[in-house]
Structures are given as C-alpha cells and as structure tokens.
C-alpha cells in the first residue's frame, strides 16, 4: 500500500521524469501510478510533452542569419586587427 499522495507525486514528477529519484522513491511513485489513473495521465502526458519538444527543431538557424553573423564577426576581427 503506497503512502504517497497525489500532491507528493506531483512534487516528485520532475525528478522521476529526469531519472533522478532514488530506487526506493521510484518504487513508491510507481506503486502510486499503478493505482491512480489521474497521476498516470499527468505523468504520461508530461513525458510525451518533453519527448515531442526534444524531437522537434522549432527554430533552425536560417542560412541568411548565419551569413550575417559571420559578416559581423569578420568586421569585428578586421577592426580589432586594424588597431594593432
């Protein structure tokens, strides 16, 4: 019988998803998840949230932005070398 409440579970959710809980606590969490459908859903959907963000590149660097960065650096380096 697990003593973990839903509030306790929520406090541990981050560490649990990050694989940073002690084995004992992990067991308690898993016992709670097995008997609490709500916490199971929260856990599953938060895990999926992270998985989807990690698997999707939202903002690839546009080639023109890269180009303008290199130009700005080139100007900076020339300017610095000019001072020597």
């Amino acid at each position: 019988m697990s003593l973990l409440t839903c509030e306790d579970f929520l406090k541990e959710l981050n560490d649990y998803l990050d694989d940073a809980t002690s084995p004992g606590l992990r067991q308690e969490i898993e016992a709670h998840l097995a008997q609490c459908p709500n916490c199971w859903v929260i856990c599953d959907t938060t895990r999926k949230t992270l998985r989807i963000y990690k698997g999707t590149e939202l903002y690839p660097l546009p080639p023109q932005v890269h180009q303008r960065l290199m130009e700005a650096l080139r100007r900076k380096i020339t300017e610095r070398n000019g001072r020597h």
Partner: protein
Amino acid sequence: MHPEAARTNGREDAELVRLAQEGDAEAFAKLVARYENSIFRLARNITQNAEDAEDVLQETFLKAYEHLGEFRGDSKFYTWLVRIAVNQALMKLRRRKSDRSVSLDETFDTGEETLVREIAVWAEDPEQLYSQEELRRILASAIESLPPIFRTVFALRDIEELSTEETAQILNLSVPAVKSRLLRARLRLREHLTRYFKRKGDDVFAYL
C-alpha cells in the same frame, strides 16, 4: 549541433578557446559553428521574436570575442556563452515590452497555484496527428504562452539540456527555484498541449 554532442566537446573547446585567445580567428569560427544553432534557438525561445533573436545571436558572439581574454575556464565555454545570451535576451524582452513579468526572481505562492486543471489521455503518438508545420506552430505557441522566466528555464533545461545546477548558475537562482519553475513550465505546456493532443472522445476534468 545537439547539446549532447556539445557536452563531450569540453576539452576540445578549451583548446579552441586558448587558440582564439592567442588571436586565431579560425579557432573562434569553429566555436561559433559549434554553438550558433543552440544560441539562436535559445534566444528565439526567450525573446519570441525573430529579429531580437538574430540581434542576440550577434551580440553574444561579438561580446564573447571581445571579452575572450576574460574567460578563465572555471566554467565551460558553452555555459559562459549561454550566460551572455540569456542576459542579452532578457534585456531585449524588457526593452520591448516594459514587462514587469520579466523579473527572474519573482516569487509565487507555491501552495495556492493550481498546477493541473485538465486530465485527458493523449493519443499514443500525438505528434502524428499534425503536419510538421502545424506541430511546430502548436509547440511554439505553447512556449510563447509561458511567462518569460518559465520559458527561459524550460529552454535551458529541456531544450538545450543544461543541468539544473548550470541553469541555476546562469540565472542566479537557487537549485530549488529552478526546479519549481521547471515543474510549472512543464505542467503548463502539458496543459496547453492537451487540447491538441488528447485522444478523441475523452472527457476532460478538473483535478488537484
């Protein structure tokens, strides 16, 4: 480059930094190539504005070049770079919005806030429900809906994959403060995405 790969480059970074400090522009260009994607993405996530993100990208590497002599190597080069970028990005945000919510050490009542409002089972692979472009738009709008400090912590921890300790150091926050903001960020994103990703026909109900 993927953050995981960046992490294994620590020693090589130190060598490139040393060469760059001695005036080797090629070495500095290699560091730029290694981290420009990450810095741009981070700036874009924090500022929520393409123009500001480009400014932050340039300012970060120009500042890094200018102050390279002051880099002592007691932190990783990448962490040092991220710190510059985050400061520039938050400054942009403050300027653009004169937004009081940009404060990093804002306190909130951790006991009162409802962390979870909706519970609904998601589809097994919810990302398959949308085209790549729709998915990007949905994910981006969820991040945009977060207060700046939440999306900054989320971007550092879950997108750029810095550790809790590194994130705390970069933001001058305590480790527990980073953890509580990250939990709120993750749960708010989850909540926001539920309306798009829930399994059809399932009820949504209040909780906690």
